[in-house]
């Protein structure tokens, strides 16, 4: 509707789903803008969504320090969420992430592109889990 902002229904429903999940969930729109993450994600990312707010792709991609399992910096194009956004295909990976609270955590991420129709890409949803590390044993 001309002049009126409206999120795509697929994103609205994804956010409603995420708000009911105990699994950390992160949602970006088709431009890569972070539009929502849920409370379990806040625990891992180290800041509430209310504090962080929506942010463009370059903002969130640079805020969280990401490393491969060997400790080397993880290029953006190898991040599961970035693969889902840029290549529009599902991706899964395990990586180290230093959240906004300064804590370094080992996480698994599964990201999937969101298509409202075969040609209508509306965004990406990523679910992630904190993995046990040798230090936890």
């Amino acid at each position, binding site marked *: 509707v001309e002049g009126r902002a409206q999120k795509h229904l697929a994103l609205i429903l994804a956010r409603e789903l995420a*708000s009911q999940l105990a699994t950390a969930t992160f949602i970006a729109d088709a431009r890569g803008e972070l539009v929502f993450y849920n409370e379990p994600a806040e625990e891992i990312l180290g800041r509430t969504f209310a504090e962080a707010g929506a942010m463009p792709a370059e903002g969130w991609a640079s805020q969280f320090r990401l490393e491969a399992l060997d400790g080397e910096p993880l290029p953006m194009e190898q991040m599961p969420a970035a693969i889902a956004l840029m290549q529009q295909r599902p991706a899964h990976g395990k990586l180290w992430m230093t959240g906004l609270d300064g804590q370094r955590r080992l996480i698994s991420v599964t990201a999937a592109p969101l298509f409202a129709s075969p040609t209508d890409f509306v965004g990406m949803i990523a679910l992630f889990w904190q993995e046990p590390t040798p230090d936890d044993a």
Partner: protein
Amino acid sequence: VALEARIWGCRGSLPTPGEATVRYGGNTPCVEVRTPTGGRLILDAGTGIKQLGARLEPDGPVHVLLTHLHLDHVEGLRFFAPFWRADTELHIWGPPSPLHSLEERIARAFSPPLFPLELSDTPARVTFHDVPHETWEIDGVRIDAQPVSHPGPTLGYRLAVNGSSLAYIPDHEPVLGVELADLEPEWISGHAIAAEVDVLVHDCQFSESEYPSRVGWGHSSVAHAVQFAQRAEVDRLVLFHHDPDRSDTAVDSLVERACELWDGTSPTTPVAACEGLTLQLP
């Protein structure tokens, strides 16, 4: 008058004739909209469309805008008289589906064993259209369609002309598991379609006490309908899609409740749709 809308059917889910529904009517959704130039748009093809079709003269193209393909919104199409006249130019608009065309999906209801004839047997010149993403025009009326929250591909429509606007969202559960009051407008399903319209025709299938056991069925409680209308800052709310178990007296009670909840953002309090109700937009 810019637009004039007439209700031919406002019952949800199932046609409900009988003495308990005489005042509001038992036909399923159909709303006729007359344009300033004398054109005609028909919103949904529930059983109400049968009586409308019997009165239509073959005086130009007929446009039917379907919100979705649940049976209560298309079951009248098979008995829509213009479908059976060779001189009819009929355009049917509806929600796109990832897998099947609109024609293929409607043909299911137009084929055995559900119906004795095939869609291809109808003499009218019929064209099926997936609604476009962007605004389009019919008879000078600007039309927007956007997906709204309801099981299966479902649209809300906004019709606007000469500064007047009407939104039609007959099947809608505006929030699921979150509070409507907490959401920014752009995160509310259907908000852009309804924002600041003169008239909003909106789902009001459930009472507040019924809704908790029907979450996810795709319909609104009276509280949802009122709150959605107020968040969208509409001028007039018309309650629609009455539950088939709702008697006329019970619909009266829902209207009373809607008026209690209406906080006076507009001086025009909610009303319930009934067959024959005509809405004249300024």
